């Protein structure tokens, strides 16, 4: 996604597209995370409300997933930085 080959109009269009994509990604993340944590944590249907154990589990699940995702991002950035050091800084936003 080398933006240097785009004229300003194209770069602006790409930027708009990227923002839309980010919004969509966030919504996907949210829905998938809910399903993931529900599936792992909520198995007691003797009650409508979350038990305290389930609540703690869902909290842990969500936080852990976000930390995991952050770690993957950092690993990818590190790998890319090691691969082509001069461009990495320019391409990082």
């Amino acid at each position, binding site marked *: *996604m080398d933006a240097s080959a785009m004229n300003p*109009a194209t770069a602006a269009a790409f930027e708009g597209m990227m923002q839309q*994509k980010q919004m969509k990604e966030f919504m996907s993340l949210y829905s998938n995370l809910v399903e993931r944590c529900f599936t*792992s944590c909520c198995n007691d249907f003797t009650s409508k409300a979350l038990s305290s154990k389930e609540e703690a589990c869902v909290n842990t699940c969500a936080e852990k997933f976000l930390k*995991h995702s952050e*770690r993957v991002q950092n690993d990818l950035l590190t790998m890319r930085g090691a691969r082509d050091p001069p461009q990495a800084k320019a391409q990082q936003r």
Partner: protein
Amino acid sequence: MSFFGAGRSQSAPQGQVDQGRLVEAQMELEMVSDLFNRIVSSCHAKCISSRYAESPELNKGEGVCIDRCVAKYFAANEKVQTVLQAAQKAGGNVGGF
């Protein structure tokens, strides 16, 4: 990991959106985004147990597992890329009907 755009000169006038370039960039963005999501999902399945009994922090074992998983996934990705490119060059009809 850029397939497109290398060596291309600007083909659209300054004020106009270069649709060709935009579509390429969009495809690349989709691919990168998809790759990221798959890595996150696969490495979560492989490295993080679903019991969630302890703290929300990643313990050291999980951290190291994730680092290695990401590196391995990427390596596998590149390997498959090589195989596909070779197949395309040889047969010319890969993934088609």
